[in-house]
């Protein structure tokens, strides 16, 4: 009976496993209790799509979609919504883009760009009711086909539709039907391949569970077209619910005469049997499937003969995938022209994808072919969570490949993905963020295919385990470049000489990661590092691995947790001599990889460092003693973090290191570009003083103009770390009026020259930290209104989110999607003309490129415009030394030795990388010092001693339970915008110790072969359940 409300409860596999059936039972109880049972109908449906938000409840007629519904939510839902009409807002979806609640499920971004053909009934009807299926138009196509069309006509229609096999290979479906139809045999067979086996792919299961009749109807139409009498569905035993629903659907169809003899009163008779497979991956291959279907060992045989000529029991056999059959009735009912109008050139219709991995919305999605990868990941998937960046998209499962972030504008089709070295495959899409190690990923897939190889043919059976063996060695840091060559050779051999599709595609994950991420393989082999900090054998802990200076974070944090502040400081000084500075301005790459975040939040490593550094300063702890003098002199040009670090480490090895600084103060950008409210000058000076005391000489006001002179003066090697100090100006016009300055000039003016002139209305152009610094500094100098104009979306600003938030607290206004096009004003600047931007296609960094929108230009009134949109190096010094300098003043150096093309001349820091971070410069300086030592005959190594784990003197287990991250005191907004006094406060001693104890000690949890921090992650998960 139709009631007032239809309440659809998703009973797809994922929702059921999150207890949707219990929710349904509770709904029944509550409706009884509220005496609503007559008005409200509960319907169990198949998969609705956004599986991670299950259990899902969809309420019609409004179309309100509730997510994560718990049994305890049901009473409220019934009392409020069903009885009183008040939608329960807390259970609604939230739009990621607009940050607002979305009531109607069709307006949820996840659904907006989807187009449901195959999944039209999934989540909309009761899969166990043939009547609902018929009500939704079911079996109409079969009726139409058998009563009004000839078999040839059906085949012609399928051909014209352009549908291609959805199982992976993409063979034109109509052509395949035609092959079978043309076979003379009186007996033929139709088989449905439901042996879905790609890890993470579950579209076939969803269709069978959510809309089994659509498959039955598709198969029946196919049987009619090719002249078959029997059909088989080969489905794996791991899909019990699919089997159950399919079985009941078959019975219902037979009962209605939709299967069996004389269907629709015609001469056409057809019935279907279910065959349950044991779940071998190889049985998804058609010849192996047929062997298994016949009851033989499921191994493939070479084609030809193809199943269309000799398949099951040597009969002509039509074999299609579940999703392919699910398309059939729509094509017959609505016509091939309609279907062919969807999609792109050679790829028509829609494709169902199982979206998983590092993406906000995981689940099943159906999109028209031609949808771009970026739309799939960002618009439907909601992008990458946890502030991480997108690295690549893996499509096609173990037979597929990885597509790097620069191809987000690629429209999805069989051809385009193949061109990129990936495949559409059965539709698995795994979104990979920056924390994914591509070597490890390839290893995972090869491990899968090696264990699923049937063992019949040699290249696949024996070759894949050899590839796995090599990948194992590489991820353990034991691989050689010869191994890499052999890996590639094996991959090609297996791909081209294997018997069946399993072996022929199994090397794809390796080949595609080699194509786009070869550098990552080489990093594992040559540098013994895993850039994503995944391969456990190659690092101490994720924090240490992600630190460009490789500071032994677990060791010093653990010393802090013991209250051994001085020991912590000593550990830090081994790899990073600027703790005070880094304790304030470091980007804290370490925190982004901290495993503690799996419990609540990362450990506040930077604030801990700051506490430690302040302690060291107040207790006048000295750095390590310099090494015994070896009589060799090395010149360092520039006294920024790279120069200071290089000088410091050279002095440690006994070199006489002399830093030449052109300015009257040392510190480079740290002194000229970072405002004092972030980095107080006494802290800067204390860090530098300590380095000087370990034996480094700094010559201020000593610009170097000719590197040759240095060698002539007896320096045996030179390290050039001159930074990227030249501010770029955006093209704002030929001659700029007064009041337009670069961020570099502006900030330097304040801290070096003591300037304090600022306009009332300041507009800052840019989105990086130097833009934020300029804006906040302008406020402090008395600007009444400070606006930042940024051409992309706020979320894309390269500045650290923390800085952005603080600036906004202080009253800085951020206008995103606003691109400056010109200045207004005569002699003095009066305003900035800006174009309104719209999000365009994706760029190589995976962000949407801003494109001019149709909104009119605006003029921001401004008495001062600060252009803080990038800095570059000049490269003059190195060019003068005959070294090739690229665009932007950058010099190519060896990333390990920092060596230039001229022996004895090394370079690093911003001068070679472009504007980067302090800690990256420190790392570069240290690497250069090691290389210089080796160049001058030293051992070129600094830490001969074994790393020692630090024991603790407290109950570590007590700290594995949830404990909020400590927050240091912050200066109040109203006081802080009046001066350049430091904004961020320092931990109290007890607070620091407590915070340090949140460390999970990943450094101890490395197992011989275990993936990174598996145990600390499981510890974290365990703690969460507690």
């Amino acid at each position, binding site marked *: 009976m139709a009631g007032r409300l239809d309440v659809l409860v998703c009973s797809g596999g994922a929702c059921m496993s999150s207890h949707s059936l219990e929710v349904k039972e509770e709904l029944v109880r509550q409706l009884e209790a509220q005496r609503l049972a007559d008005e409200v109908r509960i319907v169990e449906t198949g998969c609705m799509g956004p599986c991670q938000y299950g259990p899902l409840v969809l309420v019609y007629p409004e179309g309100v979609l509730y997510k994560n519904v718990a049994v305890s939510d049901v009473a409220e839902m019934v009392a409020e919504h069903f009885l009183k009409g008040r939608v329960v807002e807390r259970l609604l979806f939230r739009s990621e883009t607009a940050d607002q609640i979305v009531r109607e499920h069709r307006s949820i971004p996840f659904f907006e760009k989807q187009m449901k053909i195959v999944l039209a009934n999934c989540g909309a009807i009761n899969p166990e009711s043939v009547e609902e299926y018929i009500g939704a138009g079911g079996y109409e196509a079969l009726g139409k086909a058998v009563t009004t069309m000839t078999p040839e006509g059906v085949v012609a229609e399928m051909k014209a539709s352009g549908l291609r096999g959805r199982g992976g290979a993409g063979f034109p479906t109509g052509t395949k039907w035609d092959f079978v139809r043309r076979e003379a045999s009186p007996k033929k067979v139709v088989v449905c391949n439901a042996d879905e086996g790609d890890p993470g792919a579950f579209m076939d299961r969803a269709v069978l569970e959510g809309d089994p009749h659509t498959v039955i109807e598709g198969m029946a139409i196919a049987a009619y077209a090719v002249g078959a009498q029997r059909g088989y569905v080969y489905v794996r035993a791991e899909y019990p619910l699919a089997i159950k629903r399919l079985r009941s659907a078959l019975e219902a169809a037979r009962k209605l005469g939709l299967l069996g003899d004389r269907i629709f009163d015609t001469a056409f008779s057809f019935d279907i049997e279910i065959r349950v497979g044991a779940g071998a991956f190889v049985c998804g291959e058609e010849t192996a499937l047929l062997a298994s279907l016949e009851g033989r060992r499921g191994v493939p045989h070479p084609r030809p003969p193809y199943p269309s000529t000799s398949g099951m029991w040597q009969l002509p056999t039509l074999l299609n995938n579940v999703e392919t059959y699910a398309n059939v009735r729509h094509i017959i009912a609505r016509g091939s022209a309609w279907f062919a109008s969807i999609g792109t050139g050679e790829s028509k219709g829609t494709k169902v994808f199982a979206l998983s991995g590092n993406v906000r919305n995981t689940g099943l999605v159906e999109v028209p072919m031609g949808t771009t990868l970026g739309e799939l990941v960002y618009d439907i998937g909601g992008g990458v969570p946890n502030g991480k960046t997108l690295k690549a998209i893996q499509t096609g499962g173990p037979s597929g490949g990885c597509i790097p972030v620069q191809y987000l504008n690629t429209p999805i089709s069989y051809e385009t993905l193949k061109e990129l070295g990936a495949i559409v495959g059965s539709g698995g899409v795994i979104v990979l963020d920056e924390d994914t190690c591509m070597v490890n990923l390839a290893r995972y897939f090869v491990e899968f295919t090696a264990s699923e*190889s049937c*063992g019949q043919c*040699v290249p696949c059976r024996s070759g894949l385990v050899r590839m796995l*063996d090599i990948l194992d060695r590489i991820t353990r840091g034991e691989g050689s470049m010869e191994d890499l060559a052999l890996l590639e050779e094996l991959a090609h051999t297996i791909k*081209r*000489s294997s018997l069946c599709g399993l072996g022929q595609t199994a090397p794809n994950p390796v080949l595609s990661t080699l194509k786009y991420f070869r550098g990552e393989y080489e990093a594992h082999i040559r540098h013994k590092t895993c850039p994503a900090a995944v391969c456990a054998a190659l690092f101490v802990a994720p924090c240490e691995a992600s630190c460009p200076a490789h500071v032994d974070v677990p060791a010093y944090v653990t010393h802090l947790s013991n209250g051994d502040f001085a020991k912590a400081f000593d550990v830090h000084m081994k790899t990073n001599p600027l703790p005070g500075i880094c304790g304030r301005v470091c980007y804290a790459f370490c925190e982004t990889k901290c495993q503690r975040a799996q419990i609540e939040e990362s450990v506040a490593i930077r604030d801990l460092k700051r506490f430690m550094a302040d302690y060291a300063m107040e207790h006048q702890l000295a750095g390590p003693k310099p090494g015994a003098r070896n009589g060799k002199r090395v010149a360092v040009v520039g006294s920024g973090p790279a120069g200071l670090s290089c000088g410091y480490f050279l002095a440690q090895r006994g070199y006489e290191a002399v830093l030449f600084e052109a300015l009257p103060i040392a510190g480079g950008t740290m002194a000229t570009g970072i405002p004092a409210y972030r980095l107080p000058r006494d802290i800067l000076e204390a860090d530098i003083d300590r380095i000087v005391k370990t034996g480094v000489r700094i010559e201020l006001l000593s610009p170097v103009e000719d590197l040759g002179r240095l060698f002539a003066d007896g320096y045996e090697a030179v390290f050039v770390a001159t930074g990227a100090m030249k501010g770029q100006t955006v093209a704002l016009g030929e001659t700029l009026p007064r009041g337009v300055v670069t961020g570099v000039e502006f900030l330097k003016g304040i801290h070096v020259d003591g300037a304090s002139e600022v306009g009332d209305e300041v507009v800052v152009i840019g989105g990086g930290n130097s833009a934020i610094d300029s804006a906040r500094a302008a406020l402090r100098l008395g600007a009444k209104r400070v606006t930042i104009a940024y051409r992309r979306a706020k979320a894309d600003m390269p500045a650290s989110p923390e800085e952005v938030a603080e600036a906004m607290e202080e009253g800085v206004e951020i206008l995103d999607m606003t691109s400056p096009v010109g200045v207004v004003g005569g002699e003095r600047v009066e305003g900035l003309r800006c174009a309104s931007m719209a999000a365009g296609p994706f760029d190589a960094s995976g962000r949407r490129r801003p494109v001019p929108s149709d909104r009119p230009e605006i003029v921001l009134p401004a008495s001062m415009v600060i252009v803080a949109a990038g800095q570059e190096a000049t490269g003059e010094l190195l060019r003068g030394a005959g070294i090739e300098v690229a665009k932007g003043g950058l010099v190519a150096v060896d990333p390990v030795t920092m060596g230039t093309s001229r022996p004895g001349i090394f370079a690093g820091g911003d001068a070679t990388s472009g504007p980067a971070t302090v800690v990256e410069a420190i790392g570069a300086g240290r690497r250069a010092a090691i290389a210089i030592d080796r160049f001058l005959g030293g051992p070129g190594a600094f830490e001969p001693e074994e790393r020692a784990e630090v024991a603790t003197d407290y109950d570590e287990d007590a700290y594995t339970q949830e404990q909020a991250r400590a927050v240091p005191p912050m200066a109040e907004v109203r006081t802080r915008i009046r001066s350049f006094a430091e904004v961020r406060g320092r931990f109290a001693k007890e607070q620091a110790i407590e915070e340090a104890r949140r460390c999970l000690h990943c450094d101890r949890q490395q197992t011989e072969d275990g993936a990174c921090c598996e145990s600390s992650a499981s510890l974290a998960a365990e703690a969460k359940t507690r």
Partner: protein
Amino acid sequence: MLRVVCVSGRGGEDAVGLGECPVVRDLADGGDLVDKLRVKIDGRTILAAPGKTILEVAEENGIHIPTLCHLDGLRDVGACRLCIVDLYGQLVTSCTTKVADGMEIGTQTETVRAYRRTILELLFAEGNHVCSFCVSNGGCELQDLACELGMHSVRVPYTYRRERVDATHPRFLIDRDRCVLCGRCVRVCQEVEGAHTWGFAERGVTARVITDLAVPWGTAESCTSCGKCVEVCPTGAIARKGASNAEMRKHPELVAELTERRARG
């Protein structure tokens, strides 16, 4: 005796520019006219009877293609992949691919040879093929293949399998460490002897041949002890008891003889 009649165009094999002659027919033994196809193998144009595999046609014309799992008289499965040939840039197993008119086949291209060698290395690496004290030393197809394919060394690490020898059968034994999983024993047992004693179990690297339901061979009740598996095994894996180092000589050609005789009745 091959006589060629050219149905259209000029007659006589030597006289015919085969490339120009559209259909060639052969007066076979019975005098029936059988269509012949023209294929090009390693640049040579060759007449071939339809229904034959590339391997058969090549062998008939003195072109040798290395094989391991193939055996005359048994169904071909294309498992060892050593007989791959280049067919329009695709690699196909010559034992399972039937000739078609106009095919251009390369049996010795650089790629084909390199891949065969790599496959052979994989075979050597996955078993314990210690020729020096093997019963089949000097009479082993795998050993011969190393010579034929020019395999100097095995570049992937050897796995050193450790399977127990099954010597429970009174007359024969199997050392699975020497098994190359060609499946000839399985097929001969099925197709010729009809006993179905041999079969495969497990998959991937753990795949192995078993007797009955993985029972010791001596207790496999279906085994007729006919010894065909011993004769067809290309290596020393299945051997006669009592044969010592390098004493085992096998006669796989018996299978073809047997099947031909049976066909004649």
